[in-house]
């Protein structure tokens, strides 16, 4: 009896021990899960408001004040799509940039889309190339092409203009920015949907809205017009059309881009009249410049650029602008007109275009000839608040640098170029043509004042190595340093052996 009681007691103890172990095990597991859960929760909570220190050389992890203001003005959610392939340079740069927008505003959602994996989404926005960004707000969207984001043509190293482009698109979709550029039609001008489609794509990527305008079907230039481009008219304007354009410039502060080709034996009195109000006249004939021309073709001059806001980036980059079949111009009046491009003194304006041989004779005007002119006018300085909301917001930083009341400032009025081919699709990509076309419209629109976000270049400090230095670095780091560790190990072993 006692024996069986003892066995029963042992069994009870064993069961109690097992229960105890089970209970302790369960407790320990619960405690572990609890601690891990707390840590995960802490991570999730603190991820909402991260503290960030940007030590990058190109300051890529911070947005410009203009971008933050544009985000503050968002009234509805925005989705930023980047159509990129994982692991590429574009994916990295765009991913970093768009993440900054997402962190800066609760209204921004970012989606990195692989166009191969989600082709329907790519088709929806008509994305044709990887590296495209789409900014979508409600039912509207703005597409930014890769060449508006990454440029490498002018400065050697790649320039990233992503922030500029995305912020402009945000301003435009919010109805706060984006000047409207009208291309005049009805006189045989080039169309922004055909001849100038590359320029249109570029301008849209820069935040402009491009439209066409037939003045014969309206009674004035539309109210939203900032710049009217007259790109290579083949026939003259009607009197009313000329008057509408003059009123647009003189009464409403509108800006004109006139790109005029030589039209031998054709009179354009209304165009000439419009030019006269700008202080410009056309020089009859086609420019022949044996001194500076594309591959020796004297009829395709590559004129010298004169220093101006429009041309200075091209001069710094040492690139030219080719004007195939150019019309010479002449500044008729005063200091309002600045020459942007001048031919060499070997050039002349050939009046006789019927002959096979181009020869300068008595009636031809001799070089140097002016081929592009910028026209400005003096205006009293407007208070910073008088301009549009977006302009005042974007230039808030520059407000302190503005001159005091009563002073005047020079504002752009027109740019007249003696050629319309330079910005057409076939010539657009040549050296500085694209930048000249885009710069002159940006300058006219005053857009450079609206969003002055500096494009970023990734500095790549290069190294010049002699053969000896290269060998020294290779053997020193690959063999020398590990060998030093081996020697240290042997020394320690030796000392311990002696102990």
């Amino acid at each position, binding site marked *: 009896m006692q024996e069986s009681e003892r066995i029963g007691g042992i069994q009870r103890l064993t069961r109690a021990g097992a229960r105890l172990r089970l209970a302790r095990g369960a407790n320990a597991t619960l405690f572990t899960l609890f601690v891990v859960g707390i840590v995960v929760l802490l991570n999730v909570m603190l991820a909402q408001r*991260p503290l960030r220190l940007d030590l990058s050389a190109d300051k890529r992890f911070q947005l410009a004040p203009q971008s933050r203001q544009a985000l503050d003005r968002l009234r509805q959610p925005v989705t930023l799509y980047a159509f990129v392939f994982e692991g590429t340079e574009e994916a990295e740069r765009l991913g*970093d940039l768009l993440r900054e927008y997402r962190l800066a505003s609760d209204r921004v959602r970012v989606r990195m889309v692989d166009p191969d994996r989600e082709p329907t989404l790519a088709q929806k926005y008509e994305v044709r190339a990887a590296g495209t960004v789409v900014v979508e707000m409600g039912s509207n969207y703005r597409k930014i092409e890769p060449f508006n984001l990454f440029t490498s043509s002018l400065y050697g190293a790649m320039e990233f203009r992503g922030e500029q482009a995305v912020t402009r698109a945000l301003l435009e979709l919010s109805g706060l920015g984006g000047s409207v550029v009208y291309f005049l039609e009805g006189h045989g001008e080039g169309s922004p949907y055909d001849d100038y489609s590359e320029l249109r794509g570029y301008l849209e990527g820069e935040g402009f809205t491009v439209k066409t305008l037939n003045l014969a079907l309206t009674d004035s230039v539309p109210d939203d017009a900032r710049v009217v481009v007259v790109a290579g008219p083949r026939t003259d304007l009607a009197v009313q059309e000329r008057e509408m354009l003059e009123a647009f410039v003189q009464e409403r502060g509108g800006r004109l881009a006139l790109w005029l080709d030589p039209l031998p034996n054709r009179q354009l009195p209304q165009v000439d009249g419009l030019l006269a109000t700008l202080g410009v006249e056309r020089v009859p004939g086609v420019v022949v410049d044996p001194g500076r021309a594309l591959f020796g073709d004297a009829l395709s001059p590559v004129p010298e650029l004169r220093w101006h806001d429009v041309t200075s980036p091209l001069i710094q980059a040492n690139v030219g602008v080719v004007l195939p079949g150019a019309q010479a111009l002449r500044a008729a009046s005063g200091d309002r007109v600045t020459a942007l491009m001048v031919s060499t003194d070997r050039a002349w304006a050939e009046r006789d275009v019927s002959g096979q041989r181009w020869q300068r004779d008595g009636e031809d005007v001799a070089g140097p000839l002016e081929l592009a002119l910028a026209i400005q006018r003096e205006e009293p300085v407007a208070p910073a608040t008088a301009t549009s909301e977006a302009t005042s917001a974007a230039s808030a930083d520059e407000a302190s640098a503005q001159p005091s009341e009563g002073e005047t400032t020079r504002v752009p009025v027109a740019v007249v170029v003696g050629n319309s081919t330079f910005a057409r699709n076939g010539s657009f990509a040549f050296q500085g043509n694209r930048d000249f076309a885009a710069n002159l419209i940006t300058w006219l629109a005053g857009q450079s004042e609206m969003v002055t976000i500096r494009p970023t270049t990734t500095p790549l400090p290069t190294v010049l*190595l002699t053969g000896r230095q290269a060998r020294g670095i290779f053997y020193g780091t690959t063999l020398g*340093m590990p060998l030093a*560790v081996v020697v*240290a190990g042997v020394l320690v072993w030796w000392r311990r052996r002696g102990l």
Partner: protein
Amino acid sequence: MAVFAIFKRELKSYLVSPLAYAAGVVFLAISGYFFSVILLATRIADLRPYFLNLGVILLLVTPLLTMRSLAEERQSHTDELLMTLPATPAQIVVGKYLATLALYAGMLALTAVYPALLYWLSDPPAGPILSSYLGALLLGGTFLAVGVFTSSLTDSQMVAGLLCFGLILLMWVINWLAFAMTGPVADAARQLAVFERFDDFTKGLVDSTHVLFYVSAIAILLFLSVRSLERRTWM
């Protein structure tokens, strides 16, 4: 104080063991090869490509550094002796972890020769180099914590090393799920990807979210090691 005593004892034993020197040689030889070959091929004074390859080196070196940490004590039955010390399991784990971290930090400090060479030859921006070193310390620290944890699970150093290697490899490739899937699984995989976060450090960004992630991962792994050690006392 107990943590410091264990740290000192552990570090001393590391400095007289051939394993630490072997790890140092492997680390510096592969590091030096990556650094010099990338520099000679690109001729650009940039340490980022080297740091982006650091993961491979850590994958090899971390198991070497940590596999003996707790497993050796168990194998040689000195863990029972360890338990009699006036130190808690937490102090033992932290002390041993800090010793491996100090050894790794020492190896990383030797690579300061690379930026010194770059400054001698050119003028690279300092910001990304500093943030890369901070990131390398956190990334390596996390891997070492993985090693200490796997070492607490078994009494075989070999098994501990293999487990450590496997776990780090898994942490490395977990974000591949994000390429293969969409939705919450992909998001979670992206969050857990240790190298994606390290990438930001190499670009020059120090983000509190990333720092907290690594510190949390280290804390959780060390906590699990302590639990594993404590488990032996009541099993």
